[in-house]
Structures are given as C-alpha cells and as structure tokens.
C-alpha cells in the first residue's frame, strides 16, 4: 500500500517532513495553550489548520495511515469549532496523543521510507467517538457527520472521555501511585515566579513555513543550511585556526614587517570567522525546552498532580552539539522532579503549599558557561536519608557519614552506587539514573550539582561550556610529554617544589596544603604511569570541575593556547581520561585531559577522604585569603591591585586633569591630588588612544591621602585568592599571578604611590611627637597582604617585624617582645589561634595586645576562639584598621590614653 507512495521525489518528501514536523511542534504548543485558555478560538483555529494541512499533504503523498489519523483529528476539531466547544483536559490529551501518533508515523517515513506498521485504529476510533459524543451533547446530529463513522460502542467513548460531558476542568485529585519521600513539609512559600504561564499562546497561524518554535523569530533574511555543511565548515575553520597558530609561530621568528602585518590580519580575520561560525552553530535552549511543558503535563496528568512550568532564558544560546547532548539528561531531571519532587495536591494542601507545584527552569550565561537550573518547590530531599542509604550501601563509612556535610551528602545522589540502589528502595527514587545524568553532562564538559531543602524543594544546577569546538587550554608537561588542560577547569597555577612543606601524605594519598585547605593531588607521572623520575621542581594546576576541586601535579607549565578539539580514534574508546587531542602551533599533537575523569581517578582511600572532609569542615570558614581585586588593562597586559585601596572609579574628562609644574594634578572633592598615568609609569608611548575624551581613573586612597591613577581600561573586579606565582624583578610589581587563565601582574601599589608622591609616606611619620617607636610583630602568610600592610604600618611610624607563620612568630618572640602582635588567623604550620594561645600561655608576654586580622572572622558566638584576642578585624576594614591599632597600642602603653589615634591619622576625619 504505502510503498507505492514513495515514487515521489525525495525533495518533496523532505519538504513535507520538515513542514509537518514544524507544524507538530507548534501544534503541541497550541494545544497546551488551549488547555489553559479553553475558549480561545484563535488557538483552536491554529490547531485545526495544522491538522488540516497534514491531512491534505498526506493525502497528496499517499500516506494512508497518516491521512486517516489526521482526518479523524481534523473532524473532531472541526466539530469543536462548529459547536464552540471549549477544549478540556481530556480532549487536549486525546489530540496530543494524535499529535504523537502523527509524529511516530513521520519518523517512520523519515527513517524507513515508509509508514511504520503501527495500529492506530483504536486512536482513530476514539477520535471519532469523541466527535460523536460532542454531537450528541449538542443535540445537533445532522451536520457534518463523518461518513466514515463506524459503529463504535458508545461505552468506549465514554470510558476514554470521562470528563467530556462536564465542561469544567476539575482535576481529579487522586493520590499518585509513586510513593513520595517527603516528610511533612513546613514551608508554605511557593517559588516566587511572576512569569506568565507557559507556553505562550501562539497567535498567528502556524503555517508550516512561517515559523519554527521560538527558535527563529525572524523568518526573513535567513535560510536553511544543511547541518552537515555547517559541521564541515566548522572542521575547516578548525584547521584554519591551527594553520594560523602555526603561521603565527613561524612569523615570530622572522622580522619582515609586511609578513608580520599580513599575519596579524589573517589572525584577526580567522578569529572573527571562527567566532561567527561558532555563532551559527548556536541554538537557543528553547529548541530542547520546547517539549518540556508537554512532558510535565503528561506526567502531572498521569500522577494526578498539578504542575506549572515556568521558563526563563529560553533564548540562551548553546552550541548545537551540546544542546543535543543535554536533551536526555534534562528530560530525566525534569521527570524526576515531577515524579518524585513535587507532591500530590493533597500533600501540598496539607503542607500549606499551593495546590499547584511549580517547576522553574532557568538558563543564563555566566562567564563562558551556561548555567541551567531546574528548580521544583516539592518536598526536597533529606540529606539524612541519603547518608543512611550511603552508609548501608557502603558508599560512606560511619565516620564519613558523621563528618560529611549535608551538601556533600546530597551530591552523593549522583553516585552510581547510590543511584542504582534506589531503584529497589522506596527512599525516593529520585536518585535513579542520576549517575547517568551526570555522566552525560560531563561528556560535554559540564558538571551538575544539587541543592535541596526538606519541605521547600530541590534545585539542580547544570554548568556547561558555551561551545566545545575550540577551547582555550593550558599546556602542561611531564618530562617530554605534554598535555592540554581545558582552561575552563583551571582555577589557579602554583609552584610546588618537591621539598615544599605544603605536601602532606595522608593514608597513602598526597595532598598539597593551599591556604589552609588540603587539596587532593593527581600526580600525572603516577596516575598515567609515565615512569618518569620525580622532578624536584614542579607546579600544581588547581582544577575545579564544579564537582570537585583538586590539583594536578605537573613538571612544568608551558602556557596558554587556544586549540581545536579533535576526537581520539577508536583505540582510545575505553580511556576516559582524555576528551580528545589537538595539534599545537608547533605541529605536535597533545592529548587533552578530561578533568572530571581525572578527578574520579583520585580514588582517595577512605581515611584520606575522611581526613579531607574534616579538614575542609575545619577550614570551611577560614578558607583562602580571598581578596577583592581590581583588574585594569593597559594594552594587552592585565594588572591587579587590591580593591581595598581603590576608593572610586571615575571617568573624567580629559580637561579635568591639570598641569602644575612638572606634575599633573586633579581637583577631587576639595582636594588637590596627584595624577599618575599608568602608561607613563610603564614608559609606554602615547598613541591614538590618547585622543579619547574620557579618561578612566582609579582614585586610590589609604584612608588618609588620595591619588589618581589613570589607566587605559578596567577589566573586572574579582574575588580571588591573591597569590604570587612568580616574584617579579620589576620594582613596581610584586609578581605575576594567573587570574582566570591570564597572566596578570600584581602591582606593588606603594611603589607606584611613591613615584606619584614621594612624600606620601613621610608626611604622617614626621608627626608632632617624635615619640618612642612602637614595634609591631606582623604575622601573615600571604606575601600580598604583607606587602600591602607592612608599608602602611611603617608609614605610620611603626617598626614592623614580619613573620610568615606562627612558628616564625614564636621564634621572633623568643628574642624580642613587640608592643603589639598583629596576626593573620589562617596560616600554615601554626595558625593565628595557636599562636595567640601560645602567647597567652606565656607569662613574659602578659599584657601584649593581640589583634587578629582576617578575611574570615570567627562568629561572635565562638567565644573560645575569640578569647585570646584584643580585637578581631577584617582585612576589608581598612579605614578603622589604623584607628584600632592606635587605640589598642595607646591603651597598652599609656593606660587608656588614646593620643596615638590622633597622632597617626590627623586627616582621618577629612577622609572619605
């Protein structure tokens, strides 16, 4: 039968399939819109037209089965229109089923070339029965009776259309079969969402050619491109990028200016081309979200639940490869949320929640990543239940189960051991297949985590890179072997000499202590069995996969390179530690490390893991010397200065900077402050850019004096650990660090200020009283902060002794006694608490004030921790810092008099 139909030419069929598929997409949308807006004639008309078109085309192409179904559907719709019958839930369900049936036939035609042998007869009968039912309801039986109407028993129609008789949409609230895991929820708060219901009604007729979902708002000016062609182009561009890299390297060796210029052009053009082509591969996430309302609706109906879908950021674009890979995990998560997350209406009512549950989908872009959150306001997942489960499954031992944080316990839901176990348990079912979800997401370089609060809901967060094809990487080496590490995973680089005291070995696993935290280390030499001699000097690449943080120990770091990911061949199928390879600018091939898999390889022994968990808990509050840092830019180079010193960012008119003798000055808030131009500091020649009318200026202030630093541009303000990777020989720089994968010079701002205003630090020092110099012992492990604060203190006339940790401080204290001990709290070897306790235990230091200076002060409640200190100050608290020193020192030396306060900061009141 249908086989004869396929003499038609392929092109015609292709067009038909494309059109029909698009039509179906909008059909589903319209149907669901119709469900929430039953009386909408436009929607009904649009649904009718789609069905009509499909029927017509299928007749033309001789697709009999398709024609029959579409015909029955059309008849029912036509009856509804004629009678002004509002679509109810059941009719919509039936029509959606029809749409599914049509889709399955189309798929069959597309793949097999013929209509699949599926028996759609029952569906056709139900459609016809519904139609007759409508007719009988209205009492008008004469019009438009389908001639094909058979004698279907009316019972069947009634059976399948129970609610058709009542026009109201009363949901039948039965307890869903799937047992739910929730304890009695306590929160009433529904997810705040102001968005309108989804899907938005489609007003215009979904004429097949007119539109395609929400993906392409404008049909004009765009053409269809074969995906194969696009992929082929992508490959070519990738090759071009590689050749470009090679070309750039070659020209570096020559000096012919014309060649260099041409190469620069090619470089730029390639970059643009690459960027634009990448953009053509981007598709809005709505292309995979489109089906979600439908899925949710079906599940909700099946389980007797009420679920509203709210979607935000449907326009967020992603590479189509990634989109395709995301579809299944996303669907799975959503099914889980509807099935196990959102409670039955009855349960929700008892819990004081809205009857209707909300599923909130959100997509947004965030620094090179797309963050997708799937949030439900259901019952949440209890970490305790997971812990118990993990314990019984042997995923955790008792000690770990006790130590593990609730958040970490929740993440165990992605653990294969736990995940599969849940299939047979009645715990939640929520974990089922979550390990697969994670694996799928990780395949495209993403990560996923879960947050949940019992009673109020669960949020899953997926983080994926924008694009896969060309990625920035860090090239590292072990011996002769080089590897590329995707930069999106690289958080920091640090040097780690083999003799460093930061190395720890716990239960056979190696750790490196970074800012008080034990970082598990993957040693490439061991893990990949490179069989190399362990080298003395080495580096650690700090990796954050979103799921776990660890370090990769390597011999050396070559630098950053943008590479094209090429797949590895069939001989590497079982190797998950690589996610491809690439050709570098010098023509050599490098494997690209897959950081998630490497992280899983860590395989810490249980004890070590427990130790790490405890260590993490301990240092959770004190973690890292996070600094707010301002990045500014001059040319290609990035510079970092601590934000504490920046009072304001100003865009000034060129004329505002005046000249006074040799110097440039700025009138600023009633003061005349010196101006320093960064390019002068660096001895950069003036160029075109100088012509800009507006100048970007940083107003720097130490709380007393100000100066203006004019820079070319501001990069960003980041909260990052400031750690100097490479000390600098340049007097103006403390050293170099890597911030977000880019080498950044840390500016020694005091040196800079000295240049602008040589008298800056002296003015206050030559105060009225040339009193006895006070000694401060300053204990701080971060060179950055030492470099920042020590000059400040010295400028105030103190004599500063410096120790890098508690141990060094003790050594100094054994020899000389300062007037004040100023200590950081988080330090290696001996931290501030230990140091303070030690000092307090010694009678020879009685009365010595101790000030703690920290980024993370202990809670007010932790009196034990606070007991040893006279004051605890935060590092951000710059203005009061000096004030406090003065007060405390004054008290200590003069018995409560606070002369020094006034002495050391005479201009304090006039300050900002």
């Amino acid at each position: 039968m249908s086989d004869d139909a396929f003499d038609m030419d392929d092109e015609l069929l292709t067009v038909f399939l494309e059109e029909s598929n698009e039509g179906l997409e909008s059909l589903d949308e319209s149907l669901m819109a119709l469900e929430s807006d039953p009386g909408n004639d436009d929607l009904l008309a649009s649904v009718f037209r789609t069905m009509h078109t499909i029927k017509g085309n299928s007749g033309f192409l001789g697709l009999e089965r398709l024609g029959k179904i579409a015909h029955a559907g059309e008849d029912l719709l036509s009856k509804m229109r004629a009678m002004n019958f509002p679509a109810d839930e059941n009719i919509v369900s039936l029509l959606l089923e029809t749409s599914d049936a049509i889709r399955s036939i189309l798929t069959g035609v597309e793949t097999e070339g013929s209509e699949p042998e599926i028996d759609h007869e029952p569906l056709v009968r139900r459609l016809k029965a519904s139609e007759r039912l409508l007719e009988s309801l209205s009492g008008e039986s004469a019009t438009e009776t389908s001639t094909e109407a058979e004698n279907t028993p009316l019972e069947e129609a009634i059976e399948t259309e129970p609610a058709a008789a009542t026009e109201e949409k009363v949901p039948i609230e039965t307890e869903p079969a799937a047992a739910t895991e929730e304890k009695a929820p306590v929160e009433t708060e529904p997810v705040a969402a102001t968005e309108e219901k989804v899907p938005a009604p489609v007003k215009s007729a979904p004429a097949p050619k007119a539109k395609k979902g929400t993906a392409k708002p404008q049909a004009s000016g765009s053409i269809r491109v074969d995906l194969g062609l696009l992929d082929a182009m992508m490959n070519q561009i990738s090759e071009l990028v590689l050749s470009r890299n090679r070309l750039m390297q070659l020209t570096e060796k020559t000096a012919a200016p014309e060649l260099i210029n041409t190469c620069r052009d090619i470089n730029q053009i390639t970059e643009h081309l690459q960027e634009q082509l990448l953009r053509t591969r981007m598709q809005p996430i709505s292309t995979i979200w489109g089906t979600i309302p439908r899925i949710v609706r079906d599940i909700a109906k099946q389980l007797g639940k009420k679920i509203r879908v709210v979607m935000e950021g449907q326009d967020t674009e992603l590479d189509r490869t990634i989109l395709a890979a995301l579809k299944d995990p996303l669907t799975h998560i959503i099914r889980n949320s509807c099935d196990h997350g959102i409670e039955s209406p009855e349960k929700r009512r008892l819990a004081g929640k809205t009857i209707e549950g909300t599923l909130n989908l959100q997509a947004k872009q965030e620094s090179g990543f797309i963050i997708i959150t799937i949030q439900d306001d259901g019952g949440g997942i209890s970490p305790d239940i997971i812990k118990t489960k993990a314990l019984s499954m042997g995923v955790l031992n008792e000690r770990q189960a006790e130590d593990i944080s609730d958040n970490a316990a929740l993440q165990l839901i992605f653990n294969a051991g736990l995940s599969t176990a849940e299939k047979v348990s009645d715990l939640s079912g929520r974990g089922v297949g979550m390990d697969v979800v994670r694996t799928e997401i990780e395949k495209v370089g993403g990560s996923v985590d879960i947050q949940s609060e019992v009673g109020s809901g669960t949020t899953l967060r997926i983080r994926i890179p924008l694009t896969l094809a060309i990625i920035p990487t860090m090239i590292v080496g072990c011996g002769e072997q080089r590897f590329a590490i995707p930069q999106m995973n690289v958080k920091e680089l640090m040097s780690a000499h083999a003799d460093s005291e930061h190395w720890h070995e716990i239960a056979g696993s190696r750790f490196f202590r970074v800012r008080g935290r034990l970082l598990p280390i993957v040693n490439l030499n061991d893990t990949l069995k490179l069989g190399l001699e362990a080298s003395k000097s080495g580096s650690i690449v700090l990796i954050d996969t979103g799921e776990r943080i660890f370090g990769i120990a390597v011999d050396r770091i070559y630098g950053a390179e943008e590479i094209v990911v090429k797949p590895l061949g069939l001989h590497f199928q079982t190797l998950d530690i690589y996610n491809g390879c690439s050709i570098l600018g010098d023509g050599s091939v490098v494997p690209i490390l897959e950081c998630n898999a490497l992280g899983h390889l860590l395989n810490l022994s249980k004890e070590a893991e427990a130790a790490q968990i405890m260590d993490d808990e301990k240092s959770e509050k004190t973690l890292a010397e996070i600094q707010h840092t301002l990045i500014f830019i001059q040319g290609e180079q990035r510079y970092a200065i601590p934000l504490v010193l920046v009072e304001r960012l100003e865009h000034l008119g060129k004329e505002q900077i005046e000249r006074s003798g040799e110097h440039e000055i700025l009138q600023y808030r009633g003061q005349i402050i010196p101006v320093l131009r960064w390019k002068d500091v660096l001895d950069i020649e003036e160029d075109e850019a100088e012509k800009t009318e507006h100048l970007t200026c940083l107003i720097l202030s130490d709380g007393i004096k100000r100066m203006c630093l004019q820079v070319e541009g501001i990069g960003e303000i980041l909260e990052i650990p400031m750690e100097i990777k490479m000390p600098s020989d340049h007097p103006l720089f403390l050293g170099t660090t890597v911030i977000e994968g880019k080498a950044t010079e840390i500016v020694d701002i005091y040196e800079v200020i000295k240049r602008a205003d040589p008298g800056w630090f002296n003015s206050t020092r030559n105060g009225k009283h040339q009193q006895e110099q006070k000694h401060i012992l300053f204990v701080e492990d971060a060179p950055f902060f030492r470099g920042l604060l020590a000059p400040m203190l010295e400028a105030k006339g103190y004599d500063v002794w410096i120790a890098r940790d508690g141990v060094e401080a003790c050594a100094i204290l054994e020899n000389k006694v300062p007037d004040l001990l100023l200590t950081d709290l988080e330090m290696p070897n001996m931290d501030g608490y230990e140091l303070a306790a030690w000092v307090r235990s010694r009678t020879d230091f009685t009365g010595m004030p101790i000030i703690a200076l920290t980024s993370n002060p202990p809670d007010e409640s932790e009196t034990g921790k606070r007991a040893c200190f006279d004051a605890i100050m935060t590092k951000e608290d710059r203005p009061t810092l000096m004030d406090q020193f003065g007060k405390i020192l004054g008290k200590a030396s003069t018995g409560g008099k606070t002369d020094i306060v006034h002495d050391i900061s005479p201009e304090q009141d006039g300050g900002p």
Partner: protein
Amino acid sequence: MQSSDSKELLTFLVGHQWVGLDIDQVREVLSRQPFTPVPMASAAVLGLINLRGRVVTILDARTVVGIPMQEEEASQRVLIIESESEAIGLVVDAVGEVMPLEADSIESSPDSLPLLWKEFSDGIIQQEERVILLMNIKKFLDISIQQQTETKDINDDTRAINQGRRK
C-alpha cells in the same frame, strides 16, 4: 579493488612473517617518525602523529600480534591505512614490494597458524622461499581495538617499560 584481476599486494614484515595487504587500502608509506605517546592507552598504541593536520593513531603491528616490541630500526615503516572513520598508522618492520595478486594463488590459512594470526588472515600465498599472509585489515584493526579492554588491566609494568623505551 574495483576489478578483481587488477589487485595488487603490498608486502611487509611483521616480525619474521611476510604479510600482504591490498595496496588500495594503504594510502601512503612513511618512514618512522616521532609520535606523541598517549599514556594509559593500550600497549599496541604507540601514539599519535600529525599527518598534515590530521591526527593519526599509530599502532605497533608486532604488539597487536603478540610479538615483543622492537627497538626502533631504520627499516621500520609506517603504513597509513584509511579505515572506516579514521586514519591509522601501522608500524611494520620493513616494507617489501608491490606484487600482483592472482586470486587463484590464494590458499586457505594452514591450521598451524597461531589463532590470533588466523583471525585476521584471509589466506596465504606460498612462494618459493616465503609464505605471505594476506591481511584482512578490518579484522586486524578490530582485534587491535578489542585489545584495549584487555590491555587495560594487563600488568602495568610492561607499559611502564614500553613508555620508558619510547622516550
């Protein structure tokens, strides 16, 4: 390849065994060149090379058939083979000649042939002073691909030694 009578065979040595491969399946023959090792890959995978912008997996033919790997020798050649989805480089001990293949000279593989060899051989050709084994490259590659699961947990010492040797 297209017509049966014009088939030609490229002969090469794997260990001491002469092997013949339909010349249409060999894209080019390279002298041995430095390659990028891929740590943890199966033993037969020597690494990757950049062949005019294309990444090619290099296999050691000896290792695939279970003959101990050999030090690098000047006679060694890399046969670039176009398989279904990718290009594979096969390191052989020496390349012989290109000879016409007459269908009637093919005999079935003798029972004495080791099982592994038999698996990828389409038969043999007896010549006066040598026997040429006809290689079915698809089967050969399939075997080498399968080996990765086996080698995955085979003793790592060998690999470490190999790795060291490649340096």
